[in-house]
Structures are given as structure tokens and as C-alpha cells.
């Protein structure tokens, strides 16, 4: 049986189910208890699990991140709530120097089973320090797994898998998608980390979209369909591990690829995926792989500027049309 629930409810259910199943799972972060976070994603959890397991912290991100790392090394399985992805900069040392490296540095003897839940996404008119999409920063660090759910269904399945994972996993939810509904099974399910999904089959171009950019790609595919162009849409679901098999399989079929992601384009996720396609499917390509990331500027506040910085379905479709029609890339 499936029913439609919001991404927010999906996250809430995943956490509640895992906390019921395993009492070493705890929740840590600012205003996670009574307030249920500013996005109200965690509402109701403190009522069920109490303040011993749903723990409100002071506004001390490096501190509670460090405590979570230590707790994870010694028997608990913390889920850390980082209110905005922009605050990753505050926790980078604990996350990247401590959590990511502990298993390796201890020769496999220690491990850090924790989940860092945070968010990404611009166009909320929140300006440069509350709108960033910083997943590339952590995907760069060996030892961290990185998940990018693009729907309520993925959010629940990936989060449950992350909580059961014995490694640090960082999950980025798009804060604009919390109220988006999708069909989610009532029965328990997990989505393994490292399995991409083909969301729409097509023949002429592969659109690879992470997180909310999956929706941008799906809308672009509809626009293209009206133009008589057949686009395939692939959602990687996780960046680390990255399901190269599914991505390359699709590109070998379509011979063209556009990678769309909301992180900055320079030195980013789109670059990494495009490079792997170019290396590993070069002889199947009919055109260069196109990267479409967020514009390489701090996110501006003004609506008149902010909307220019994020890929749109129209822009993706325009690039796809050019690729399929053989317009040279420098003319894009």
C-alpha cells in the first residue's frame, strides 16, 4: 500500500521508525525537541522519545557535532540536525578531520556511525548565508557518504539506510521541497546508498539531476518531449557512492548528457560527474557533456538576481535541444 506524504513527513517517519527499532539512535540539534526545527520536520518526536533522546542544544554547532562524533565512536548512533547547510563551515573540522578519518586512522578499529542531516537550495530569498548548496565540499572528503534525496520516497528510504550505516553519512534535503508530496509505501523499505534511479526513459539525451534538480530535469524532459526530443532522466540519489553503472549505461544509450546540480558549478558535482562520463563513455558521446550548476556567485538576496543563479527547466531544455541538434557547444 502507498499513500502520499510530504518530504517532511517522510523524514519524520524514517527517524521515528529507526528510533523505535534501535534505542541507541538519538537526535541532536538546535530546536529539534519542542519546536521540531524551524521547518517543523521533527514535530512530535520529542513527545514519543523524550528529551533524553531528542536533545536540544545551544547554538554551538562545532560543539554538538564533536559530541556526536565521540558518542558515535562509543555506542550511540546520533542523527545530527544542522539547521542550514550553510552552517557546514562551522562543523567542518569535526566532520572532515574527525568523523571522516577515524575509521581509517585507527586501522579499521574505530568507526563513526552518525548521520548529519542538513539542507540545501536557493530561491527562498534568504541571501548568501542561508541559501548555499554545499554538498560538493563533503563529497570531496574520503570517508563521508553523501545522499541527495529528490522526493519523499527517497528521503525516507535513504535516511533509514543512512541511520543503519556504520559510517558518517551526510544527507542534504532541499528546504524548498519539505512540503512536496510523493507516494511512499506504508510498509518498511530502505534505499541502499549507491543506487541511482532512472526516472524517465529516453533515447536522445540523458539529463542527470540531483535533489531538486531532478524535478528541473523532469520538467525539461516534458518540454523536450513537446519538441519531439526524447530525454532520459537519471537521479544519482547518492554522490558517495556514485552509481556510475546506471549513469554510464544511460549515456552510452543516448550519447549525450547534461548534468544539473544546485551546487556551484566551478569545481563541483556537475564537473565530477561530467568528467567520469567523459573518461568512461567517451567513445559513445556525440557531444561534449554539459555542466549546469548554480552560478558561481554568492547567492544574492534580491529576487531579481537570485532567480538568475539556479538552473531552470527552460535552460536545461535549451541546452539539450542544442546538443541534440548538433549546435556547437561554444554557441551555447
Amino acid at each position: 500500500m502507498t499513500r502520499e506524504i510530504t518530504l517532511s513527513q517522510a523524514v519524520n517517519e524514517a527517524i521515528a521508525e529507526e528510533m523505535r527499532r534501535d534505542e541507541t539512535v538519538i537526535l541532536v540539534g538546535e530546536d529539534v525537541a519542542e519546536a521540531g526545527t524551524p521547518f517543523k520536520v521533527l514535530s512530535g518526536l520529542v513527545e514519543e522519545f523524550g528529551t533524553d533522546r531528542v536533545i536540544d542544544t545551544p547554538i554551538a554547532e562545532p560543539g554538538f557535532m564533536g559530541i556526536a562524533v565521540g558518542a558515535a565512536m562509543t555506542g550511540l548512533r546520533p542523527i545530527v540536525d544542522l539547521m542550514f547547510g550553510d552552517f557546514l563551515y562551522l562543523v567542518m573540522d569535526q566532520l572532515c578531520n574527525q568523523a571522516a578519518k577515524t575509521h581509517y586512522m585507527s586501522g579499521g578499529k574505530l568507526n563513526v556511525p552518525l548521520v548529519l542531516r542538513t539542507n540545501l537550495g536557493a530561491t527562498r530569498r534568504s541571501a548568501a548565508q542561508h541559501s548555499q548548496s554545499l554538498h560538493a565540499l563533503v563529497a570531496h572528503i574520503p570517508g563521508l557518504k553523501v545522499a541527495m534525496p529528490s522526493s519523499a520516497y527517497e528521503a525516507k528510504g535513504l535516511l533509514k539506510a543512512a541511520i543503519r550505516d556504520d559510517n558518517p553519512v551526510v544527507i542534504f534535503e532541499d528546504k524548498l521541497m519539505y512540503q512536496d508530496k510523493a507516494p511512499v509505501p506504508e510498509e518498511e523499505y530502505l534505499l541502499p546508498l549507491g543506487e541511482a534511479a532512472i526516472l524517465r526513459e529516453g533515447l536522445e539525451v540523458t539529463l542527470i539531476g540531483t535533489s531538486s534538480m531532478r524535478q528541473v530535469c523532469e520538467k525539461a524532459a516534458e518540454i523536450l518531449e513537446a519538441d519531439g526530443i526524447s530525454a532520459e532522466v537519471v537521479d544519482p540519489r547518492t554522490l558517495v557512492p556514485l552509481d556510475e553503472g546506471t549513469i554510464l549505461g544511460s549515456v552510452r544509450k543516448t550519447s549525450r548528457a547534461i548534468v544539473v546540480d544546485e551546487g556551484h558549478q566551478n569545481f563541483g558535482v556537475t564537473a565530477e560527474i561530467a568528467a567520469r562520463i567523459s573518461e568512461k563513455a567517451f567513445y559513445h558521446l556525440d557531444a561534449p557533456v554539459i555542466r549546469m550548476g548554480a552560478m558561481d556567485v554568492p547567492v544574492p538576496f534580491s529576487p531579481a538576481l537570485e532567480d538568475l543563479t539556479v538552473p531552470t527547466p527552460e535552460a536545461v531544455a535549451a541546452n539539450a535541444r542544442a546538443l541534440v541538434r548538433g549546435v556547437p557547444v561554444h554557441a551555447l
Partner: protein
Amino acid sequence: MPRDKKANAEAYLRMYRQMVRIRAFEDNANQLYLNAKMPGLTHMYSGQEAVAVGICEALTDEDRITSTHRGHGHCLAKGAELKLMFCELLGKEEGYCRGKGGSMHIADQAHGNLGANAIVGGSAGIATGAALSAKRLGRNYVTVCFFGDGATAQGLWYEVMNMAALWKLPVIYACENNGYSEYTPTDEVVAGSLTARAEAFAIEAHQVDGQDVLAVNKCATELAERCRRGEGPFFIELETYRYHGHHVGDINRDYYRSKEEEARWKADRDPIINFGRWLLSEGVATKEELAAIGSEIGDEAAAAVEYALAAPYPDAIEVDMHVFKGVEHALPYMSGARQ
């Protein structure tokens, strides 16, 4: 009226006026939000006016401040114009940051405001650095670092307090304790006392009623003067209260703060009403004069809103400007185009 009060009448009325301006600004900003005319969310300063005004009245345009997400009051108290602030809140080109910063990043160099900050506690380093500049460059300005009670949980503040104390920097850390950080009462997230934390670094600490503009101003004036004589740094904890929710969208807040508590603060400890009463009782102003200030500022604010609503947005070409100093457009520059 004693002579010093008469001599100070001008300053008193300026402080009254500034508090009224801040309240009027916030009431209009809140209305813009409710009417869906403002992009995003904003944090109201209403209720805390005496803190910003009492402190900034003790400062000159040369003196610096750093501000917070709840920063409109600091910005106005330091001398900003209503019109340009509304333009910034609405993302218009004429705004203080050309629409690029918005409510949480307004900065006003002409009056020494180094900027609001959307990272809680994020400006502690900046304020302390500005104080280091003052000392190294032989300038006699003071820097005031405004922050909330919630920001005292950030480690950065302790690191910079240590250095400020070691290096005797002319900085005043002004903590506005409004009883809450977001949806959490302060006593649930602060262990021990805040003044003791500053004192642990041998920084002189004061506690002041943040609803009493004269008390705030007296303390700030003394500490600013002592900073100029090389006796800084200092810490002030100001007890105050925010009237609105954490941000304009935080409307149903009974679960963390009672309506009775809000009503009590507004009735008993409103900084504008109480100071107005004092001005009347001391004969500094008449009822009519205070009412005239209120309506004049009301008109000024309404005109500023009208102006900002009609003002143009920045041109699309600005989107990659101001990324690097000395580079007109960042995108071609980052791809190797020669300047």
C-alpha cells in the same frame, strides 16, 4: 528641571526619536511581510530599541558596530536612512547593499556599521578585528559587537575575548539578552552566568536594564570613553525582550512563550512608553511634542515604504558584479578573461 537635564534635552529627544523610528520601521516591515510584499523573512527588533539607541548615542560615526540577524535597530540607531533600508529589505538597487544582502546583511559604511550577520555569533571576530585595526592604525574609534544571548554558545566569542583581553583591544561586547534564542528560553541553553564568562578573561562585565535607554546610554558612554583611553575590552549584558516572534513568520508561539508574558513586558517595560513618560515628568517635552514626533516619523516611514516599493530592482547584469574587489564581472574573470 535640573540644568544637566536641560542641557541634555537635545540628546534625550534624539534618543526618543530614534526609538520611535525603529519601532515604525519594524511595524512597516512586518506589514510588508504580512502583505506578501517582502521577499523572505525578517527578524523584528521591536521591544529592544533602548539597547541599540542607548549604545549608539554614545558613539560617533567613526566608531564601528557589528550587528546581527536582528539588526534593523542597530543600523537605524547608527544613523541609517529609512528609505535605503526599505529598499534593501525589498531587494532594490538603491538599497544599502544594492539588494544583494537583504535584511540580514545590511551594512552602512558611512555610519560605521560593518554589517548585520546571518551566522549567529559570526561577527565576534570581525568586531575584534576592527578593534585591532583601531589600535594598530592609531585610530581612536571604539567597536561595539552586538549579539544575542543565543550567540554566547558559539566558541568563536571565547577565542576572540581571550585575544581582546590579552591585547587590550577597544571593543565592547554587547549581549542583548532577550530571554530566547529562537524557540528556546535562554536558561535552557546557558550554564552559569554570562558576566562570569567575560570575567574569566579578566574582562570587566556590566549588567544593565536594556529597557532603560538612559541607563544603557550612561553605561555605554562610560565604557566607550574608557575604551578610548585603552582600558578595553568590556562586556555588557543587557536584559531586554523581543515583542514579535523569532521572525515575522513565527506567529503561533504559545508553545514556548506565553501571551501573558508578552503582554506584561509591553505594558510594564516598554522602552518608548517609559522614556516618554519620563520626558513628560521631567518637563523635557510636552505630550503634544511627543505626539508630533510620532506622527512625523509615521509619515516619514510610510513615504519610505512607498518609495522602496516603487524603486527598481537591480539590473540582471549586476548578478556577477562585486564578487571580487577590482573585478567587474566575476564569471568571465574566473574563466581567465583578462581584465
